[in-house]
């Protein structure tokens, strides 16, 4: 990877981690509050993130915007024939999201904030990924 790309991805990640922290969406409390429908905060954050992502992605597609190196931008569609994996896998993910109060990004952002215990769910997340691969052929997709 070129040094310029390295720095740009690093900066993009830094901004992402910083804003996740400032928005408090990495908080176990905010996740409980969201699933209990007791605050609009998380819905506002996620809803506006999708709105901005949607508008910019559709503009990039429709205007045939190239990436900074001049390569055409292609998105990767999700296979629409695998609905079972989305609903069942998604439910497993949701159980973990509410239980731990963090999805993958926030686990690492919280680790950066000094919460060293997040090493444990990160290792457990790797174990979960390994387990999925091990039994993938037996699971409905």
């Amino acid at each position, binding site marked *: *990877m070129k040094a310029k*790309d390295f720095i740009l*991805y690093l900066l993009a*990640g830094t*901004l*992402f*981690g910083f*804003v*996740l*922290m*400032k*928005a*408090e969406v990495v908080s*176990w*409390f905010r996740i*409980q*509050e969201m699933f*209990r429908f007791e*605050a*609009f905060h998380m819905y506002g954050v996620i809803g*506006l993130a999708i709105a*901005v*992502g949607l508008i*910019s*992605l559709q503009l*990039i597609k429709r205007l045939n915007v190239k*990436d900074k190196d001049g390569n*055409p*931008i292609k*998105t990767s569609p*999700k296979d629409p024939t695998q609905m079972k*994996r989305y*609903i*069942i*896998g*998604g*439910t*497993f*993910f*949701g*159980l*973990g*999201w*509410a*239980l731990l109060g963090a999805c*993958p990004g926030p686990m*690492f*952002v*919280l680790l*950066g*904030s*000094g*919460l060293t*215990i997040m090493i444990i*769910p990160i290792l*457990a*997340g*790797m174990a979960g*990924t390994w387990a999925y691969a*091990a039994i993938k052929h037996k699971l409905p997709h």
Partner: protein
Amino acid sequence: MFELLTQPWPWYIAGPVIGLTVPIVLLIGGKMFGFSSNFRHFVSACGVSKNEFFNYNWRKDGAWNIIFLVGAVIGGFLGGYVFANPNPIELNPATISALQGMGISDFSGFVPDDLFAWSSLGTPVGIIVLVLGGFLVGFGARYAGGCTSGHAISGLSDLQIGSLVAVIGFFIGGLLMAHLIYPIILG
């Protein structure tokens, strides 16, 4: 200026900035924003599995993702340590009293010390939250083919029906946990 960096950002500022991640990584190198694939890269990098699922060039395919992750850790350090908000999160009092009713007593930080201290690894509840919780996130993200970033933000931005179904799954699981299972675990 320091105060601006330490205080929490409202949803209408934070949401759009998070959403900008989608065009930013597309414009840098045509990448679709997602975070959970890093778990797969890490397992692949450990070299502990012979499964073909981990047999790919993680250094090449995963480089951008891992660098983004390192950035996120730095961002967490800046936002949560260097410019940490000294005040507790302003939660709905109804949430606080409900959680107190389930035995949560520490509301000073981003996570309750009752569950997220190293000593909680010595308790069944701590192990369920930290180990089982992390495991389900890693398992479910790969099973569903993405997490909150890959499906809810990127996938919905790309109008993918599969991502909509996955997000519905996220909420089925999350609501079951928050309303039915968590009270049993903590009770």
